[in-house]
């Protein structure tokens, strides 16, 4: 399952491990993106009408 080499190539992941890592990275990216939108919306809804009430 885990292949390791003593040469410069270091640890070589299996195909399944690479695919799993990619799926985890994509999921993590989606979660972080969703959180950015979520916190933006929370800020907007928290501020309410005050968000447009600012001096120019």
């Amino acid at each position, binding site marked *: 399952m885990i292949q390791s080499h003593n040469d410069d190539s270091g640890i070589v992941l299996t195909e399944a*491990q690479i695919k*799993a890592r990619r799926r985890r990275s994509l999921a993590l990216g989606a979660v972080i993106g969703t959180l950015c939108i979520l916190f933006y919306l929370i800020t907007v809804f928290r501020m309410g009408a005050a968000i447009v009430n600012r001096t120019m």
Partner: protein
Amino acid sequence: MSDAGLSRYAQTALFAEADPKDFIALLKPRVMSLVVFTALAGLIAAPGSIHPFMGLVAILSIAIGAGAAGALNMWYDADIDRVMGRTAKRPVPAGKISAEEALAFGLVLSIFSVVLLGLAANWFAAAFLAFTIFFYAVVYTMWLKRWTTQNIVIGGAAGAFPPMVGWAAVTGGATIDSFLLFLIIFIWTPPHFWALALVKSEDYARAGVPMLPVVAGPDATRLQILLYTLLLVPTGIAPYVTGLGGAAYLAVAVIGGIGMLALAVRVYRRREGKPATRACWQLFGFSILYLFGLFAALLAEKLAFKTFGWVL
């Protein structure tokens, strides 16, 4: 944990093949769905109002908090999960996610859910959610579960808090009515879990978990199930008495209560062979329907009143 075990976990952490769905499994989605539903009922039933978007975020926070508690539970219980058929395929005992990853995942989500609820609703609700996670992960999982036959009686409080947290997200406090919602789930938990434990007692015995059927025997458990169900029926009706529930709620509470009582009597009387096992599964299945019915009725009544002014 042996050195070989540690080594395997370390390797899993470094070269994991875990899918995102394994991390979702750590959150115990089925438990989470019941938590979300009861918390939503508490949030809608509470007097006052919350911005719909903030309400949605509050429910999301409670769901994440429940999932975090589930992940912490799976981290700590990996050793006993491994020897029980029902839990052996969970991500940690199956070797898909290391115990350390599950712990980190649970802790990060715990902190995140509490902060999110504090920002979206109020800090009383957030503190309540933090206490709920602590109660499930530390008081129940680390202490009660392996120590006493009353593990799921006291530990059941953790599963009963979500409607109070939902209520607190709107009101910023707790009242007798929100406590009643807690009490319903609290008293519902023992007959629900003991019906399952009667069927799965060999699993629990193998894992060394002192569930009531393992320690006190099946007959004593059957009596306890009946006694708790006798207590549950009037508790289920109580929200009608205080005015929290209306006529529709009362109808569900009475009909469902009679069903629960009939099935608890059946569990008490049928003690041998397949009829006994079937009776336990019937009570276990119906108890989920009963709890769902109570909170669905309350939810429907409050939504109808708040949206259309209808009194059901």
